[in-house]
């Protein structure tokens, strides 16, 4: 304990010398260095030099350059935007053309379909008509044949009836002339 106080006391004496020295220094620079007016001309002179140099450097070289860079960038951006706008318009146009083409193609397709349908319809109609005609011809032919058969049959019936009547009359022992028999048969067949 006493040892530490002793060393502390030593330090005090040692630093007291420092303090005195510093005090002498401070007295020389009159307390606050900021209020030491003897340094003012020096500081003001060098400050003016520094400000003038900075002003010249900035206003002659740096600021026009930076302003130019920023303006360049702005114009580049504007140009790019304009180009992008143009491209976008082109894309819109292309899309419109594509849509138009699509619509045209669809119309064309519809037309082709309609044409094909009409062709098919025509063919169909023709075929139908031909078939109808064939059918009608066949039907007429058949009807003709039926009529023929019917007529043939009626004639056969009349002949058979005449033959039968002649035979019956002959069997009864009488003689009948063919003329009256056929008239009688015709009358009966009619009736």
């Amino acid at each position, binding site marked *: 304990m006493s040892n*530490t106080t002793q060393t*502390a*006391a030593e*330090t*005090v004496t040692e*630093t*007291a010398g*420092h*303090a005195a020295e*510093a005090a002498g*220094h*401070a007295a020389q*620079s009159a*307390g*606050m*260095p*900021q*209020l*030491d007016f*003897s*340094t*003012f*001309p*020096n*500081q*003001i*002179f*060098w*400050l*003016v*030099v*520094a*400000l003038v*140099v*900075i*002003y010249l*450097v*900035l*206003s002659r*070289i*740096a*600021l026009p*350059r*930076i*302003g*130019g*860079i*920023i303006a*360049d*960038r702005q114009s*580049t951006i504007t140009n790019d935007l304009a180009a992008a706008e143009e491209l976008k318009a082109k894309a819109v146009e292309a899309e419109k053309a594509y849509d138009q083409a699509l619509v045209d193609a669809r119309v064309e397709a519809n037309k082709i379909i309609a044409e094909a349908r009409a062709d098919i319809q025509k063919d169909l109609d023709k075929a139908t008509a031909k078939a109808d005609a064939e059918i009608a011809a066949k039907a007429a032919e058949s009807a003709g044949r039926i009529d023929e058969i019917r007529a043939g049959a009626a004639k056969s019936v009349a002949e058979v009836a005449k033959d039968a009547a002649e035979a019956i009359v002959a069997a009864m022992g009488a003689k009948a002339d063919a003329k009256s028999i056929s008239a009688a048969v015709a009358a009966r067949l009619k009736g």
Partner: protein
Amino acid sequence: MATAEHSDGLAFHPMDQFIVKPLFGGETLNWYTPSNATLWMAVVILAVIALFVLGTRGRAIVPSRIQSVAELAYGFVHKMVEDVAGKDALKFFPYIFTLFCFIVFSNFVGLLPKAFTTTSHIAVTALMAVAVFLTVTIVGFVKNGAGFLSLFWVSSAPLALRPILALIEIISYFVRPVSHSIRLAGNMMAGHAVIKVFAAFAPLILISGIGVAVTPLSILAIVAMYALEILVAFIQAYVFTILTCVYLKDALHPHH
């Protein structure tokens, strides 16, 4: 007793860092003598050239990192001038940008260890503030003639109050350069002095047992103050610039 010992044992010279002295030895400081202020102003100039001239050398449409910093600074101040002071103030843009660059670089360069902070001196900030004040006043009178005086004649106030208000306005107008300069210098000086005070506490551990507690605390405080000073360094440059813009707006458009 013990505390007295310790305060004697610690070297408190928070203001020594602000002493202007000749750079190459010697005692006399003439107006042309290169001093430590000269050295750090030269560093500021070199930094400005490095950022704004060398950094933008590529003139790239897609900027490099350093070029985008330069463009950011340009856009920041440009927008500030345009928004606050109006479009017709843009012809003062190089002037305002010069002040901004000088202050912001001085503040940041001054934060380097062993550096000298030029903007912590009333002489420096007062010169800039007076330059702004004179510019604004001259521009105001050249642009508006006697109409510039309407800045002090608040036409929206009742007639009886106007002379009093005019007096107050005139006083506040002339206090502008004072507050403008002392704000910057005071902020920079205060921060650096406080850091220095904490730094003076840091070697306490070599002197006394209580330093075990004090030294880490003071180092922590230095770190915190340093972070705050980084913020202050930028904000004070911003405030100086924006107040310049506000004053310029008053000069260009005194009627509102």
